[in-house]
């Protein structure tokens, strides 16, 4: 039994690390919290009324809730763990503060301190053009550089976006991901709150990233942010999101919907560094449409959570459009990262590249689930898919479910998949040079995900390496 004991100690020490750095929580003192757990038309009505929404949105929410109720749970991914979600035990809406702050001074101290500990204001000062900080269901702080607003850039929380730019929102909202797309997009459509609304006018190049930070604080919280980014003709934007939550013994649910629209000649990069505690179900729908000669890139880093099911998608609908999905998943004890990518080639001369890397350790499970489809209209397209899995030990698991549906002519497809076990031989090589076993493992992992890390702004690359180091702490040989 000593092995089991060691393993438990390792898990506990992991939890300790997360607890002190990200897993802390504030007392739950809120401006408004739904009086009951669970979701119903009554809850949806209450959310919509509090937000004073137009009728079309209220109707959209109610209809989506019916869709949510009627749709069965997905039969794929991890249906066992999905089946454990207790929708009746979750709070669907918490408004932490009465007003949104435009300066950090306007944010209540407790919440501001939380974001201080997470390094958000510091990052803002150093290298961001705009910041949105969401706490539970609402964005509590928001700012954007004046130069950008002067150029017509809109960066708001989604609720303000709907209030201030109803016609743009109505035109694009749920056009890429309809409520009925899947059970969780339906749930999000019914109870969504917060998230970002971004519009970049034609030809504007937003040179420094915009960032949103999502924090769950309450126990049994459901966070359902909704993001819509529209890059108009010839514009460029890089948007970054980060997420964390406290450690609780009971579960929380994070179910976002993110829609990106890249109009002609535009460029959108969407970077995620997700670092959920392992009591969070992370079931997110992300999809983009790339028009003529537009480029969309998803850079998606998944650490933590109990179960993540997330497959960023790009529809290449305009001739010459490009899509790239670069993802990393790190599955630790008790975690299942079911992550992947989808690219749909509709227009001719489109190209896509998918690079997926996963690391499983200490019983963690990582799956790559991917779909690349070309329609007969998509002549002369180029597709490159590469999935690499790294298994740190015999207790961990990795699966690959790649699907290709090629229905057009003249398609060049390259597909590579590899699963490598960290060989004793490799560890021996590094330790024979004086590195400890832990250092050796960390070096091998960092090397493995290096193609991903290289794509991150330096500050995030450092943060990611630190997160992985945290995940590896207390590892037993």
């Amino acid at each position, binding site marked *: 039994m000593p092995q089991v004991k060691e393993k438990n100690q390792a898990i506990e020490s992991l939890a300790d690390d997360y607890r002190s750095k990200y897993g802390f929580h504030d007392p739950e003192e809120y401006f408004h919290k739904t009086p009951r757990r669970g979701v119903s038309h009554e809850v949806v009505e209450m959310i919509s009324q509090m937000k004073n929404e137009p009728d079309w949105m209220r109707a959209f929410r109610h209809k989506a809730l019916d869709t949510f109720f009627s749709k069965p749970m997905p039969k794929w991914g991890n249906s066992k763990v999905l089946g454990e979600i207790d929708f009746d035990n979750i709070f669907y809406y918490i408004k932490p503060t009465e007003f949104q702050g435009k300066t950090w001074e306007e944010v209540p101290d407790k919440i501001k301190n939380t974001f201080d500990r997470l390094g958000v204001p510091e990052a803002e000062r150093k290298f961001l053009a705009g910041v949105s900080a969401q706490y539970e269901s609402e964005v509590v702080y928001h700012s954007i550089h004046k130069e950008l607003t002067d150029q017509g850039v809109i960066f708001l929380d989604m609720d303000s976006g709907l209030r201030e730019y109803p016609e743009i929102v109505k035109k694009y909202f749920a056009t890429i991901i309809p409520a009925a797309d899947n059970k969780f997009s339906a749930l999000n459509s019914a109870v969504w709150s917060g998230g970002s609304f971004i519009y970049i006018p034609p030809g504007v190049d937003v040179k420094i990233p915009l960032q949103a930070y999502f924090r769950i604080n309450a126990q049994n919280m459901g966070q359902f942010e909704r993001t819509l980014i529209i890059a108009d003709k010839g514009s460029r934007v890089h948007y970054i999101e980060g997420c964390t939550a406290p450690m609780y013994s009971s579960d929380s649910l994070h179910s976002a919907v993110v829609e990106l629209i890249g109009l002609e000649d535009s460029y959108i990069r969407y970077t995620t560094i997700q670092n959920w505690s392992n009591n969070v179900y992370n079931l997110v729908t992300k999809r983009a449409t790339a028009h003529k000669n537009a480029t969309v890139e998803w850079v998606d880093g998944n650490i933590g959570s109990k179960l993540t099911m997330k497959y960023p998608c790009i529809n290449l609908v305009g001739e010459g459009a490009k899509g790239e999905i670069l993802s990393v998943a790190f599955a630790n004890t008790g975690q299942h990262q079911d992550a992947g990518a989808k690219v749909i080639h509709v227009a001719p001369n489109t190209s896509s590249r998918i690079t997926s890397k996963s690391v499983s350790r200490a019983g963690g499970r990582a799956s790559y689930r991917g779909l690349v489809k070309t329609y007969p209209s998509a002549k002369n397209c180029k597709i490159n898919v590469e999935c690499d899995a790294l298994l740190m030990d015999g207790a961990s698991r990795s699966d690959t479910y790649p699907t290709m549906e090629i229905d057009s002519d003249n398609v060049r497809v390259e597909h590579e998949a590899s699963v490598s076990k960290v*060989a*004793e*031989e*490799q560890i*021996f*090589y*590094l*330790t*024979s*040079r*004086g*590195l*400890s*076993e832990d*250092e050796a493992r960390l*070096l*091998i992992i*960092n*090397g*493995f*995900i*290096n*193609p991903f890390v290289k794509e991150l702004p330096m500050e995030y690359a450092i943060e990611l390496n630190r997160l992985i180091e945290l995940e590896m702490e207390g590892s037993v040989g």
Partner: protein
Amino acid sequence: MSTQPLLKINDLHVEVAGIEVVKGVSLELNRGEVHAIMGPNGSGKSSLANAIAGHPSYTITSGEVFVDGEDILEMDPTERSLAGIFLAFQYPMAVPGVTVTGFMRSAVKAHVKGDEQILRRFRKDLKAKFELLEMDPSFSTRYVNDGFSGGEKKRFEILQMAMLNPKVAILDETDSGLDIDALKVVSKGINKVQSEENTFLLVTHYQRILNYVKPDFVHVMMDGRIKQSGGPELAHKLEELGYDWLKSEVQAEA
């Protein structure tokens, strides 16, 4: 200065997958000495090298190994490295995504135990070693052994040895697969590191490298045992007669 041997091996027995491959080897290597272990394939010489460095697939069933008087058999490979053992691998492992510089810095950092001065001149030292091994400086940003040719891997092993400056350097068939020019460069590196403060154990199949790195002692290993020991002339005799004349002796004994 201590007069005890830098490496002392006493009646060492090693098993791989339950099969005994080293069957009682004893050796003493003193400061400043270069020893060569020669032998045909499968004689147990690489097993001996790997067992001393602590390879997990090689189980030491009995015997003793001391480095500078210190018993190393209870140590893990990391501790053995820090105690002064260096193994140049016959087949060095690739570590994709990890740069040569990053890897070397980690290794040097582990060895200097906080000596800031050595760390401060790390880049300069590394550059000097690249020159010594006639390697292009662009190697510093390449990934460890990833896509290296056979010769580049061997040069890089010797470069690592030169950076870490071990007390006991064990070179496992460093000469195999090298063309004559690469062999000369690698030998130059070895001779540069070799001093009165360290000792070398050259494991080799061929006599060729011994033309460039002069051994003080030559041992012939066959069937897990040291069959014969002598001076440099023994290597020449092997070159002339092959291993057969010793093989027949082994058989005669059996």
